[in-house]
């Protein structure tokens, strides 16, 4: 028990890092997701094809594998490319080391992953708005993008708050996978403490408890926001 009390501040900082990386990734994911989601709905075949490839890849492969590709695979590829350019064209090396800092690898992998899920959330949100809304907006002379911006998206945003909240919670838990590349988020810190103290059960249960506090408080927050939007405007 003293072990837990003694090491608790370290775990608490880890929880902060977990929360931070989740916030950053989901925020990036919202931007990526909006772009990819709208691209998937686009009439331009190529654009929608590209977006589909992106979404399918990141939803259809494990986040763990994606993290490993970003952290180990990309530096390896860049290094090989530099060697090739050097050997065949005499182009000097641009980077002395192609290693990606853990933090950036973590942000990149999680953002890309989150963006793919959020793209689907946006797409479903936009598609859930009745066709008549687009038609009414267009019949006033709005362009397609004006109709999207002023009529469809504002309504879609309210509908996607619950699934977006779920995505945040899922991502918060999944950032624990970043421990495999040694990124010191909550789980990794727990593992390191266990390595020193051998307090396997106490530490892991504390780690679990910290995740639980974060996910539960966040889901309460989502419920609350949803209820407030509903009372302000009952039609949603």
């Amino acid at each position, binding site marked *: 028990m003293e072990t837990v009390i003694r090491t608790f501040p370290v775990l608490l900082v880890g929880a902060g890092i977990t929360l931070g990386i989740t916030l950053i990734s989901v925020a990036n994911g919202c931007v990526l997701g909006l772009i990819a989601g709208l691209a998937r709905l686009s009439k331009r075949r190529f654009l929608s094809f590209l977006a589909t490839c992106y979404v399918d890849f990141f939803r259809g492969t494990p986040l763990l594998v994606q993290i490993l590709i970003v952290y180990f695979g990309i530096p390896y590829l860049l290094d090989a490319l530099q060697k090739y350019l050097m050997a065949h064209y005499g182009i000097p090396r641009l980077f002395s080391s192609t290693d990606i800092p853990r933090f950036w690898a973590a942000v990149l992998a999680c953002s890309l992953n989150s963006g793919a899920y959020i793209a689907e959330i946006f797409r479903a949100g936009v598609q859930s708005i009745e066709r008549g809304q687009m038609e009414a907006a*267009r*019949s006033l002379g709005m362009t397609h993008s004006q109709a999207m911006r002023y009529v469809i998206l504002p*309504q879609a945003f309210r509908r996607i708050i619950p699934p977006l909240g779920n995505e945040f919670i899922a991502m918060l838990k999944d950032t624990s996978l970043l421990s495999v590349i040694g990124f010191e988020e909550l789980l990794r810190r727990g593992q390191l403490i266990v390595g020193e103290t051998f307090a396997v059960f106490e530490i892991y249960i504390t780690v679990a408890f910290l995740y639980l506090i974060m996910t539960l408080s966040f889901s309460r927050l989502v419920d609350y926001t949803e209820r407030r939007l509903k009372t302000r405007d*009952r*039609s949603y």
Partner: protein
Amino acid sequence: MIEVIDLCKSFGQLEVLRHVNMRVAEGEVVCIIGPSGSGKSTLLRCLNLLEQPTGGEVIIDGVSLMDKKTNINEVRQKVGMVFQLFNLFPHKTALENITMGPIKVKRMSKQAAEELGRTLLAKVGLSDKADVYPHQLSGGQQQRVAIARALAMQPKVMLFDEPTSALDPEMVGEVLAVMKDLAREGMTMVVVTHEMGFAREVGDRVIFLDEGRIVEEGKPHEIFSQPREERTRAFLSKIL
């Protein structure tokens, strides 16, 4: 004002409109009647390109809609549309529903648009509902806001697609009254409707559409009292 020449529209194999020809003069009120599925909505929606015709020509106020160079968004500003299910923007108040078009499309100042919006709300008898959201309004009130929204673009033509058929009977009158006022002011109107009283009283002409063809057209009293075609007679006997 509106000229439709040899208009055809198919959805895949399904031919919905077959060589429709029709003219609507300025200030004229034309009512379109016909059985469900006969293509009334599709015809109306071809007039502002909510549906892309598969053949023929539509000319609105001298501008061909089928011409690739035509800016359809400009044409749509001249053609107001009122939908069966109102299609108000639920996240906006009644006044905001009305001012959105003028502000975003015509770049009118917010103040001028609101002034226009309030005038139109008064016109449809809803001055006190400016700040109310659509879901707080009755069906009849929502449809009147929808008419005001379309009028805010100061269109030359108004299209109505069964504007009263989703309403409870006691609310039909208030919407028809607004439409009558509009007709009296000289608005050019194309109205798909099952309200034969309205067609008789306000319509200059009635068109009977069946299976995507204009079967018969004429003055309301002619069509209703002495239809020439058997199909018109059969249809009228079912609804009158």
